[in-house]
């Protein structure tokens, strides 16, 4: 699997817009890892993340003619990927599981704080909260942008982020208050 530097991806856009197959593959090679990483952080399974990668690049290749280069190419690809990942969450309608986990954790807590690895804690969040945390804290999207992609209000995005951080704090044993 050859990779292609993201910095060079802009240089193949013109050829990709003409339908050049090698240029389209170069775009894929440049962005496949960050797109997969974003998809995998939001989706529950590797299979879902792989589907998101496919849907993202199918859309990128079909829509590259409409890319006007008024923002970064990665920003454009990333927004498509985030939308596809969120669409996948809605389609799968995963059950929100953190409530259940909370109950289990309370039973297992006993006297000592249960400390979890950050990866495991992130994985344990429900899909919506995890998506908001990742898009806001890591990818740098604003609440307005996240709300737009999710079809929700900015207040919804803010409350999901707060809820996620309360849970992460608890699961990581980082509580200061009370």
């Amino acid at each position, binding site marked *: 699997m050859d990779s292609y530097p993201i910095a060079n991806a802009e240089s193949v856009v013109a050829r990709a817009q003409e339908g050049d197959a090698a240029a389209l593959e170069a775009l894929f090679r440049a962005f496949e*890892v960050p797109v997969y990483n974003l998809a995998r952080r939001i989706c529950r399974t590797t299979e879902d993340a792989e589907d998101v*990668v*496919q849907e993202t690049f199918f859309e990128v290749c079909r829509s590259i003619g409409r890319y006007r280069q008024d923002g970064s190419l990665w920003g454009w690809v990333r927004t498509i990927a985030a939308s596809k990942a969120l669409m996948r969450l809605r389609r799968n309608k995963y059950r929100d599981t953190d409530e259940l986990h909370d109950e289990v954790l309370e039973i297992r807590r006993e006297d000592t704080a249960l400390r979890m690895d950050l990866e495991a804690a992130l994985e344990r969040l429900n899909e919506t909260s995890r998506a908001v945390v990742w898009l806001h804290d890591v990818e740098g999207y604003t609440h307005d942008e996240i709300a737009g992609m999710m079809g929700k209000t900015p207040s919804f995005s803010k409350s999901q982020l707060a809820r996620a951080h309360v849970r992460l704090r608890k699961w990581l044993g980082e509580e200061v208050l009370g």
Partner: protein
Amino acid sequence: MTHLTMEQLLALREPGVEPGTASQREHMEACETCRLELERLEQRSARLRALPTLRPSRDQWPRVAGRLNAARRQRRIRWMTAGAMVLAASLALALLVRRPVPAPATASQQELTSLQQRSRALEAAIDAYDPDARVLDGRTSRVAADLEDRIADVDRRLERTELAGPPGLNGPDVMQLWQERVGLLDALVDVHVTRASNVGL
């Protein structure tokens, strides 16, 4: 003392001033617990950003390329069908305009009609095989896409010739283009149907 909620702590990190943040900042200056909470929040976000990049375990490009090829093929077939209908209509119109009185068909007209019938039969064979629902290996897919490109090119040349009107209507150019079209469709049928029978699909 009432401490800041997580939502209030998060609001303090947002750019711009939100209603109520001034009083919350004042509280923050006086409350060590909330300052520590905010610090831990910042650290948690930093640790999230520092998580390792997850990488795909297998190459997804062949599947993306396969979907793109299938979509292109569907578009071409739709285009070819529309093109054939336009050609048939323009031929009929030209015949009506040029020959108000029916005349006996010449040998070349009969040959042209025969080529058009053969072309329609081959397209029907491809439709019946339903190539969009099949999985092709990369090489076969490229050969099929190349043939479809060439058929689309013949259709464009046929359309231009027809639009130019008589005297080219039944001339050697039109005949040659229809022969080329039938040859390419024959090859496309071979690619799809023969392959299918070989592998028992």
